[in-house]
């Protein structure tokens, strides 16, 4: 396969599928990007996926892979380890992410120095198994990412359930926090972890004096009524079905899908148990899908 330099074949290139060991072009004229390597003056693909070109840079994007973090990304993760002055967080990446004690909001004021007493009671903030939403702050030399939760939007997750999807299905959007009309809050982590939870009113979330440590680091779920539980389960199942069919996700797709399911009066479990329902759902949302 040759990449033609002269024609403006941007679109034709996009859809080109390649696989490891296939020669893409000469390395004299092009630069190698991710998913490629150079041998004998040739750029060769190292993963199976779509070939993309930006000016002289050739990259191959694999369709199924682990999350590749970038600074500023919003991720959902799970604490795997409490270490000295830091937590280790599983964020579906190639290594566990690191959340430093100095990059979380400490109780008693948003901005203050961390004390020795904070180090001793780290487990009162986050424990092994806790879920949290955070932002990628920086990278270490070995490529591991450092997270921070220094915003009122970030922190521990409660009142909902986690759904995992392939990370490529989550597109970078203006906001990754959504409130669906059905009384469900949604956090679309760019690492493919999605948090579906009961809606929390804005003023409750913010708190009046800015920051309420008790509420932010609480392990106790709020009271959730049956209708909300059903809505959370329905949204989760819609996400699972769409992810199984490799449909890119955003809020419009999910709202459309949710409304379709309610309209057709399918039960929550029909989505997962009946393949005909799943297929019908996927074709129903085809119109609302985002352009890639």
């Amino acid at each position, binding site marked *: 396969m040759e990449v033609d330099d002269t024609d403006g074949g941007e679109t034709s290139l996009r859809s080109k*599928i390649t696989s490891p060991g296939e020669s893409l072009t000469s390395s004299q004229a092009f630069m190698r990007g991710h998913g490629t390597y150079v041998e004998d003056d040739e750029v060769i693909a*190292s993963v199976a996926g779509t070939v993309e070109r930006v000016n002289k840079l050739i990259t191959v994007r*694999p369709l*199924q892979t682990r999350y590749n973090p970038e600074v500023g990304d919003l991720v959902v993760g799970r604490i795997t380890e409490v270490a000295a002055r830091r937590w280790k967080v599983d964020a579906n990446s190639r290594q566990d992410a690191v959340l430093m004690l100095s990059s979380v909001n400490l109780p008693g004021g948003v901005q203050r120095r961390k004390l020795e007493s904070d180090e001793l009671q780290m487990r009162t903030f986050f424990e092994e198994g806790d879920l949290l939403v955070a932002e990628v702050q920086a990278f270490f030399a*070995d490529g591991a990412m450092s997270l921070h939760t220094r915003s009122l939007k970030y922190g521990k997750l409660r009142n909902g359930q986690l759904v995992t999807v392939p990370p490529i*299905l989550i597109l970078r959007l203006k906001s990754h926090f959504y409130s669906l009309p059905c009384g469900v809050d949604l956090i679309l982590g760019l690492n493919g972890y999605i948090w579906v939870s009961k809606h929390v009113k804005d003023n409750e979330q913010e708190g009046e004096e800015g920051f309420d440590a008790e509420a932010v680091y609480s392990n106790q779920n709020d009271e959730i009524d049956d209708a909300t539980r059903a809505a959370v389960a329905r949204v989760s199942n819609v996400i699972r079905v769409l992810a199984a069919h490799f449909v890119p996700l955003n809020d419009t797709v999910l709202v459309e899908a949710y409304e379709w399911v309610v309209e057709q009066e399918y039960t929550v479990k029909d989505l997962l148990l009946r393949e005909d329902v799943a297929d019908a759902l996927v074709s129903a949302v*085809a*119109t609302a899908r985002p352009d*890639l």
Partner: protein
Amino acid sequence: MGSRVEILNDGGYRSDGRRQFELRDIAIDLSRHGQADGSAMYTQGLTEVLVTVFGPREAKLRSQTIHNRANINVEVNIAAFSTGERRKRSRGDKRILELGAAIKSTFEPVIQTHLYPRSQIDIFVQVLQQDGGLLSAAINATTLALITAGIPLFDYVCAVSSGVHSTHAMLDLTTLEENDVPHLTVAVMPRTGKITLVTLETRLHSDRFEEVFRIACEAGKVLHEEMRNAIKARTSALARAMGEGHPAGAPSNREGDEDFEMGDD
């Protein structure tokens, strides 16, 4: 040859009706498997292997991390019902450890481990049925599973077993033939023709080695074509599902149920 079965009869056919250089039917299923990052079900004749790949991810044990590249961990499990004679093998069985070590050393030069320092790539090989060519089937399945997991490789690795009956070389042996004739397994990287694995557990006359080896390398290139078609079909089905309104290829994507025949020179 004190065998009751004729390995190669006068008409040039083998015990299962194949020609000398004929491979068995191949079926490849690349659908997602639970929480795995990549998986492949590979069937060659009656040999059936399922490989799941996890990672690159944080190593479970700190002692297993390597500071400048990823660690590859291979675990093999052979189902008790996979052979004619029901037999339970424990995880510590030397035979199984050897199989795992062979797969690991085959893939170490092929996976671009330097891109993932301090990570671990877990490869779980589950043997469901065996009828000869176990190592080659496991290697082919591992290649496919690694590619579906999006792990960068220098090239495919295509393995095939070959043997020699008196003066006739044969490809892709069954258990019956493996018991009777000297045989070797060759894993080849088709683009460059480099070899990542050759194993020979029986005695083979040195005059015969070259021919058997060469024919196995050629067969590897034929397998490569088939594996590549399966990967491309899967990748374009996913790309299409993402780009358009079509539902993605249904959960099972069985590809390449075809016979191959290599010309008998």
